[in-house]
C-alpha cells in the first residue's frame, strides 16, 4: 500500500493542467464516437486515473468514469468514511461508494444512455469480476478497448508531468546520497526515510548486494551483508509520477565512466544503438495505467518503443575495466528529433 504523502498541490498540478488533459480526452472520445471512458485504478495500476484527476488509491480499487459531456466521477470500493480524504487529494467532482465498482459504474453510465459506447482503458486486463459487473450493470452498453486511444494522448509528457518527474528524480538522488550507515539495512533505511521526508508518495529501495557475484536487484529482508561493490536502486513516486535511479557503490572512476556511457546511450533513444556493449538494458515508461511499463529492452526488443517527448526510466548494466556496474536514471526523449536527455545526473 502507499504510505507516503498523497496530497494535491494546485501549484504543481493546477486545475488548468487537468482541464487541458480532459479536453484532449473528450476530443478524442468525440472522434472515436465514445460516450464515456472508464479507467481502472488500484495501487499497482494508478497512472491512468492519477493523470486525469490526481487520485491515487492507497489501497483497494476504483473506476474513473469520464462522460464525454459531463464531469468525471469516481466509483470507489473504499468506505464512505474516506470520502473527504479522496476529495481533498484529487480533483474529482463526485465520489460514489460501492463494493462492486463495475456494477455501480455501469448503472450510472446506463442511466444516461442505455446503449452508450464505452471505451475501457486496458479492457483485456480488467479484473474479470469487474468486467462481469459492468455487463450486469449495463447489459446494453457497448464496451470496447480504449487503451491505444489513451496511450496516444498521454505519450508526450506535458510540462507539469516533466516537472513532477524532475522532482521525483531529485528526491531519489537525495535519498541515495543519504544512503549511509554501517550496514546495507541502515543505508536502505536512511534512503527511504529521506525520500519520505521529502514528500515521496512511495519509494522502493532494492539492492544488488555484491556486484562481483550478482548484478540483479532484490528487496532486502533480514540482515544483509554487502560486497566490496554493491548498488542501490530507488524507485520513487511523486504525485503520481514514477522514476528509477541507480547508485553503484564502487570505484568512483568506474562509476564515472559508466555514467558517461549511459548518458551517451540514452541520448540516442528511441534508437537502441547506444546500448551496444551493455550486458543488458531496459527502458520503462507509462503508456496507460502501469507507472513503469517495460517499453524496450535487451530481453524483449522494442515491444512498445517510447514516443517522442515521452518520459522514461532507463537501466543498464555495463562491464567497465572488468568490473560489473549497474547504472540507471530517468530521461526525457526529444519531442522533435533532438537527443534524449537525463533528468538528473546519476553521479554522487
Amino acid at each position, binding site marked *: 500500500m502507499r*504510505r507516503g*504523502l498523497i496530497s494535491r498541490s494546485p501549484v504543481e498540478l493546477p486545475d488548468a493542467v487537468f482541464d487541458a488533459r480532459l479536453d484532449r480526452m473528450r476530443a478524442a472520445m468525440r472522434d472515436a464516437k465514445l460516450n464515456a471512458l472508464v479507467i481502472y485504478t*488500484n495501487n499497482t495500476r494508478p497512472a491512468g486515473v492519477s493523470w486525469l484527476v490526481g487520485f491515487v488509491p492507497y*489501497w483497494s480499487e476504483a473506476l474513473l468514469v469520464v462522460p464525454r459531456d459531463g464531469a468525471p466521477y469516481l466509483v470507489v470500493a473504499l468506505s464512505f468514511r474516506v470520502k473527504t480524504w479522496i476529495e481533498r487529494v484529487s480533483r474529482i467532482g463526485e465520489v460514489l461508494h460501492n463494493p462492486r465498482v463495475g456494477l455501480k459504474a455501469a448503472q450510472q453510465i446506463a442511466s444516461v444512455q442505455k446503449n452508450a459506447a464505452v471505451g475501457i482503458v486496458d479492457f483485456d*486486463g*480488467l479484473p474479470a469480476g469487474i468486467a462481469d459487473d459492468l455487463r450486469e450493470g449495463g447489459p446494453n452498453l457497448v464496451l470496447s478497448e480504449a487503451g491505444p486511444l489513451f496511450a496516444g494522448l498521454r505519450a508526450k509528457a506535458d510540462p507539469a508531468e516533466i516537472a513532477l518527474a524532475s522532482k521525483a528524480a531529485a528526491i531519489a538522488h537525495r535519498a541515495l546520497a543519504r544512503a549511509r550507515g554501517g550496514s546495507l539495512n541502515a543505508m536502505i*533505511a536512511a534512503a527511504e526515510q529521506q525520500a519520505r521526508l521529502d*514528500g515521496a508518495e512511495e519509494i522502493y529501495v532494492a539492492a544488488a548486494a555484491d556486484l562481483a557475484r550478482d548484478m540483479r536487484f532484490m528487496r532486502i529482508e533480514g540482515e544483509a551483508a554487502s560486497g566490496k561493490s554493491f548498488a542501490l536502486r530507488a524507485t520513487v513516486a511523486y504525485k503520481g509520477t514514477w522514476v528509477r535511479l541507480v547508485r553503484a557503490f564502487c570505484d568512483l572512476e568506474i562509476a564515472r565512466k559508466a555514467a558517461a556511457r549511459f548518458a551517451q546511450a540514452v541520448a540516442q533513444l528511441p534508437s537502441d544503438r547506444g546500448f551496444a556493449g551493455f550486458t543488458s538494458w531496459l527502458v520503462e515508461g507509462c503508456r496507460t495505467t502501469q*507507472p513503469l511499463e517495460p517499453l524496450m529492452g535487451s530481453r524483449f526488443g522494442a*515491444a512498445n518503443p517510447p514516443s517522442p517527448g515521452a518520459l522514461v526510466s532507463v537501466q543498464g548494466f555495463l562491464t567497465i575495466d572488468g568490473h560489473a556496474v549497474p547504472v540507471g536514471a530517468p530521461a526525457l526523449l526529444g519531442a522533435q528529433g533532438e537527443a534524449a536527455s537525463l533528468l538528473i545526473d546519476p553521479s554522487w
Partner: protein
Amino acid sequence: MKQKLGEERRRRLAAAMREAGVDHLVLYGNAWQGDYLRYGADFGILEGHGIALITADSAAELYLDSATDAERAEVEAPSVRVHFAPDIARAVGARLDRVANTRLAAAPRRFVPRWLANPARGFALDDATALVDKLLMLKTESEIAAVRRAAQIADEAYAEFLKAVRPGRRQYEIVADMEAHLRARGCPDNFMIIGSGGKDVLGMTPPSERRIAPGDLVTTELTPAVEGYFAQICRTLVVGKANDAQRRAFAVFVEALEAGIAAVRPGVRAADVARAENDVFRKHGLGEYTTSQWTRVRGHGMGLFADSKPHILEDVETVLEPGMTLIVHPNTYHPEAGYIVLGDAIVVTEGGAEVLCKTPRQLFEVAA
C-alpha cells in the same frame, strides 16, 4: 527459512488441489492483493501484476509483466520458473492452451484478467478462491511463527511511534520515521494508516501534511510483515494529558477489545466475536457507532495479506478454527472524543486466543 516456508505452502496447496481434482491452478496477484500469488509462488510482488501457475505435483511457474519485478523474482524465488511477459494474460493463455484438457481453476478468480477468464478461450477456469482461502486462513506452525515475529516487530515499532509523535511534526514525517525504523531492522513491508486531531477526525488515512498539535488524539494501525506475513497493532495516544472525556471513551474500547478476545475460541463464528465487541458499545448507548457509517470491520484475518478473511462483522458466518491469526479491533468513532483505535493480534488456539501483541492497552500520553 523463507524458502522452507514457501515449499511447505506449495505442498499444502498441491495436496488441496489433488483433493479437489484440480490439475492446474492459476493464482493472480498484484501489490495490493498479493497473498494468493505469494502462497503458491513465494514471491512478494511490488509492481505490475503477476500470475503463478501451479501444478498438482507442486511445480510452479511465475509470469510477471514488470521486467524489474521479473528480475527480482529470479533472485528472490529461486524454486519458481520465472517468465517476463509484457502481456501476461496471453502468455498464460498460451500455456493453458497446452493443458486445456485438464481441470483448471483460478484464485482469486474475480481478479484474473478478463481476457483470460473469457469463456471464448479454449479452456475454462473454475473458481478455486474458496480452496485457497481456507489454506490462507488456517496457518501452519511455521506460518504462525512468522506472524508472531511480525507482532513482536509491531510492538517495537509502536514504541518508536510514541517517540516519533511530537507537536509540530507532520503526519508523513512520522510515517517516514516508522518506515526507516522497520527497514533498518530488515522488515521490508508494512501497512500503516494514521489519524490525528479531535472530534472532527472520522477515521485513518495515509499520512497528510497536517501537523500534530497539543491535545490531538493520534491513532495508527501498524502492520509490519515478516516473510510476507503481516501482524497488526492498533493504538491511540494523546498529545499532552488525556482529558476525562478521552479517558471515559477509551475505557469503552478496552472493554470491547477484552470482550471480543474473550469470545474467540474454536467453533464460534466471526459474527460472535463482532457481537461481543458491539454489545459493549450498545451497553454504553453507543450502538450507532458500530454501524458501517462509522466503522468498517471489528477486526479481520491477518497473514499474507494485511486485511484478509475472515472479516469480523456480525454477518460473517466463518467458523473460527485453531491456527487462524486475527486482529480484534473495535475501532470506531466516539462522539465525545473522536476516532479511537485499539486492537491486538491473536492466534486462535484450542483453548481460546493467544494474544501476540504485548504493548499495554492504554491511552498513551506523549509530551505536548
